[in-house]
């Protein structure tokens, strides 16, 4: 029994999504016009989307609407007029387009970079240096009902044994990147330990990244399988056949050109 008919926009969307997915996957064969088409569409759509988002969230919601509201409701008050300061600074950035007054853009960059640098210092010190050190130096023994005890449970990151591993890891990795002292004798052992910690962490990070890419791949394949059903007019299957045919035609045409 046939299922309910899908709305036209969903059906059209499925064909577009399946086609674009196959265009990008065609790169697995080799660089080809279909992939380039998909790649340029991706850049174009992403840029267009960023422009629309910036216009509505930044220019309209943060700038135009508050200023317009103040002009209508309370024109005498300063209110949102201060928002014209960042607007002017933003316009100064555009001075880069006119070589004669390009230096004006420096004021805007100075404002942004100065703010960023100032904000970064206390936050980096408190959140990323002091806090990280504080979290690294944990007590080895804890006072429980049975008196003092040290945890040997590897599964608990807070256990005493893991605290020792954590301290050794942090110190040895920091020492490995500390080049003011020559890595000889005990220093060499510490630096080598740091390398092993780094290798394990890089391996773990790599494995984690591979699995996240795999999950994206499964997601795309699952969509293609869904779009290959009769409900979607066998979109994925039809487009796969067309993609293969297009690639074969392109390959033959390229070989013909090379032969000439």
């Amino acid at each position, binding site marked *: 029994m046939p299922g309910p008919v899908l709305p036209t926009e969903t059906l059209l969307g499925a064909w577009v999504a399946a086609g674009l997915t196959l265009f990008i996957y065609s790169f697995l064969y080799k660089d080809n016009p279909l992939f380039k088409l998909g790649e340029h569409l991706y850049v174009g759509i992403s840029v267009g989307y960023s422009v629309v988002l910036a216009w509505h969230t*930044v220019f309209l919601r943060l700038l135009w609407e508050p200023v317009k509201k103040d002009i209508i409701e309370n024109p005498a008050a300063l209110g949102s007029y201060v928002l014209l300061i960042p607007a002017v600074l933003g316009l100064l950035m555009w001075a880069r387009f006119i070589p004669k007054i390009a230096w004006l853009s420096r004021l805007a960059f100075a404002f942004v970079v100065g703010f960023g640098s100032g904000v970064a210092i206390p936050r980096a010190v408190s959140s990323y240096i002091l806090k990280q050190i504080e979290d690294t130096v944990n007590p080895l023994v804890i006072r429980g009902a049975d008196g003092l005890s040290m945890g040997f449970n590897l599964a608990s*990151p807070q256990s005493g044994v893991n605290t020792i591993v954590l301290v050794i*890891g942090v110190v040895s990795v920091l020492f490995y990147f500390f080049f003011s002292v020559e890595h000889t004798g005990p220093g060499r052992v510490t630096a080598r330990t740091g390398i092993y910690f780094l290798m394990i962490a890089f391996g773990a990070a790599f494995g984690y990244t591979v699995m996240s890419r795999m999950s994206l791949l499964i997601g795309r394949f699952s969509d293609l399988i869904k779009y290959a059903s009769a409900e979607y007019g066998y979109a994925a299957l039809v487009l796969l056949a067309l993609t293969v045919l297009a690639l074969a035609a392109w390959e033959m045409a390229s070989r013909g050109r090379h032969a000439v």
Partner: protein
Amino acid sequence: MIFLKRQLPLAVTFVMGVAFAIQYYIPHPVSEEAITNVSKWMQIISGFALALGLASIFHVHAVKIKRQVPGWGYSIVLYAAMLATIIVGFWSKGETRVNGAQTALGWLYDYSMVPLQGTMFSILAFFIASAAYRAFRARSREASVLLVAAVLVMMGRVPLGQFLLPWTWDVTQWLLNVVNSAVRRAILIGVSMGQVALSLKIILGIERAYLGGGRDQ
């Protein structure tokens, strides 16, 4: 003129840097309001800065079209896609959904951007496999450690691996929560120290690369 071109930007950087470094240590409503407002200002300035990037991409592809370099047709495709998205976006008033119903921009996002983005990133799964083959050939003790850690994490993150070797889940958790944490923490401490040093150099006017080149530098 030299003052306006060189000293004034450095003075602005210094004043802004010192003011907002101190602001963190002043828990007063005025100080809190200042950081909230200026953070909003930064969002507005970044909106204007987007135009710089847009101009750059326009310029690169306009040159390609003008000179008719091989593949210039794709630049027209890029322009067309960009223009179409902008028109659709303005027509949809920048909303992807209104009262739960998908707008034209939402359609473009769901059926073009999401599949393209997902596929672009997922294609890396294939290339990462060949990269892994080259990187993981256990030619040294360090490479072997990397290989073992990566394989354990990959096994521990999938149901099949957990079914075949149930202990890989615990080992993966330990590697990620303890060893990986230690390394990330050390790197974070090092990077933050570098960030503080660079910020100080910028505020004090020692680092000026952000002002761009030129004779006035």
